[in-house]
């Protein structure tokens, strides 16, 4: 039996340690990991928990992130609860296997501590890696601080392993800004946390010798399409379970999560849509603008990046006039991914607010309160004249001549 750990009602943890503690409380059977900055302390601390008798599972050291996720796939197919962590280049190396995990419907939990993707090499936080996972078939939950990194890990196991979901799930947090910032975290006791997640219930496990199964079958044009459609449907429909798990988590802890978080949106005229630690900056900016300038600013943050909360985005942005969608990843030859998805959702509503796109914060470039306020004020300008007065895509916090792309097409 694993040793229990006595935790205080409030602990001072950074995002990485919070995630490691959640993995320990989940009593993961197998963690196969290859450490990479800034996610290293998750698996490092987890390894210490295993070595010190706090976990009954196996910690498998492997030779690459591709091998790490492959080990996770094998262990999950065998019938165990499985998790790991990575960032950036490591995430990119895992990508081939991420698709295998989701296609085989293996409920692995992957902590992605978001970090920029080289070249140029950079260890700081942006969302390049998170975006690269968006078609991989995983549930993607986004934590904006250390408490949420802990909470969402507990939820991620429960969501991924639900019999009606059976899909892998990522829990994202921003590299350094969240992963290395120590904050107050209110943990559950070991017993409460484990009871919330529940025992792992294997499905089609390879170690059930009375019912041998084949994993990783080949399907060509006669079968592949149906299997992918079924997988897509499972991810699209997983919102039901995500909502239920968030409800159960609220009942247990009082902490409420929604697939789309919104702040001061009840009467908002302009809004910022963002992901990650930026959300808290945007909230602070919106509050100050409301207090000092009477600007009705609000913030919308997809807690759940996949499945994309299309309906909830439409609902929460239904009454705003201008929206700035912030992408912390360089879209390279297109509009930002979040911008495209928010725009697609809002295009199917009668209100069709003015929507612009800001690229920002690449490679950990700071996103300040002033940056956020500038964006809010610019949205107010669009709202007042009724059209987009700037390029549709702009760059916030970038040195050099102003960079922007595309103008609105409008009749005089």
């Amino acid at each position, binding site marked *: 039996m694993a040793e229990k750990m006595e935790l205080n009602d409030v602990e001072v943890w950074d995002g990485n340690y919070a995630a490691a503690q959640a993995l320990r409380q989940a009593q993961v059977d197998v963690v196969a990991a290859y450490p990479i900055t800034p996610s290293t302390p998750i698996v490092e601390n987890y390894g210490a928990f295993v070595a010190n008798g706090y976990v009954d599972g196996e910690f498998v050291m492997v030779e690459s992130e591709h091998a790490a996720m492959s080990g996770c796939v094998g262990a999950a197919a065998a019938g165990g609860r499985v998790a790991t962590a990575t960032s950036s280049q490591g995430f990119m190396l895992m990508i081939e296997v991420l698709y295998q995990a989701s296609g085989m419907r293996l409920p692995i939990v992957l902590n992605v501590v978001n970090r920029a993707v080289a070249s140029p090499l950079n260890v700081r936080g942006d969302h390049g890696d998170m975006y690269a996972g968006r078609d991989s078939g995983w549930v993607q939950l986004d934590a904006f601080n250390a408490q949420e990194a802990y909470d969402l890990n507990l939820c991620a196991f429960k969501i991924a392993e639900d019999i009606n979901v059976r899909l892998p799930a990522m829990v994202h947090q921003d590299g350094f800004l969240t992963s290395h910032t120590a904050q107050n975290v209110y943990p559950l006791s070991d017993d409460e946390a484990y009871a919330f997640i529940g025992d792992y219930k294997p499905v089609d496990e390879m170690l059930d010798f009375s*019912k041998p199964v*084949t994993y990783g079958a080949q399907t060509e044009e006669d079968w592949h399409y149906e299997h992918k459609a*079924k997988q897509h449907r499972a991810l699209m429909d997983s919102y039901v379970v995500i909502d239920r798990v968030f409800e159960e988590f609220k009942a247990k802890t009082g902490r409420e999560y929604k697939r789309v978080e919104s702040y001061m949106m009840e009467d908002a005229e302009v809004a910022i849509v963002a992901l990650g630690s930026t959300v808290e900056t945007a909230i602070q900016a919106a509050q100050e603008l409301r207090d000092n300038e009477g600007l009705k600013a609000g913030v919308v943050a997809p807690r759940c990046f996949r499945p994309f909360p299309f309906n909830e985005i439409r609902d929460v942005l239904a009454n705003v006039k201008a929206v700035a969608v912030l992408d912390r990843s360089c879209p390279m030859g297109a509009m930002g991914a979040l911008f495209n998805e928010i725009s697609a959702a809002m295009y199917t509503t009668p209100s069709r607010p003015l929507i612009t796109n800001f690229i920002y914060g690449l490679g950990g470039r700071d996103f300040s309160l002033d940056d956020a306020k500038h964006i809010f004020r610019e949205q107010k300008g669009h709202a007042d004249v009724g059209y987009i007065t700037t390029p549709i895509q702009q760059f916030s916090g970038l040195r050099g001549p102003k960079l922007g792309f595309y103008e609105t097409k409008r009749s005089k």
Partner: protein
Amino acid sequence: MKGVLATDRRGVRELGAEELVGWDEVTQGVVLNSFDIELENVAHIPPEERPYSDFNSYTATVASWRVIKPVYNRDICIDCQNCWVWCPDTSIISRDKQMLGIDYDHCKGCGVCVEVCPTNPKSLLMFAEAEDPEAALAKWPEKKKKEKK
């Protein structure tokens, strides 16, 4: 090698002849069950008596791309089981340690069985896929004499 026993369903169907069902009926995670029912101690049941599912390749013929094939010569074989041990596609059919032949519905023609055959001449040799087995046996090589030192 059909009919080890009358119940053998080895290679009874063409691959891809399964009933095409819609997305709502395919298995979750492309997981394919080997058998239609749950079984205990399946390792102790002879293959031809196992209730293989249509989605197990046992019942499918999956060797259409083979271009050379091993031919088996019973007269020389010593039933050492080397080929049975080494075959990567479990295509050597053996029962009670007696070599019975080759499962041409699953053999890919890799030639490993020939490579590991210890007899002189070999009891398994590779021939063109179209070669008639009787003709192949008729042109089997003679025993090689030891070279004198």
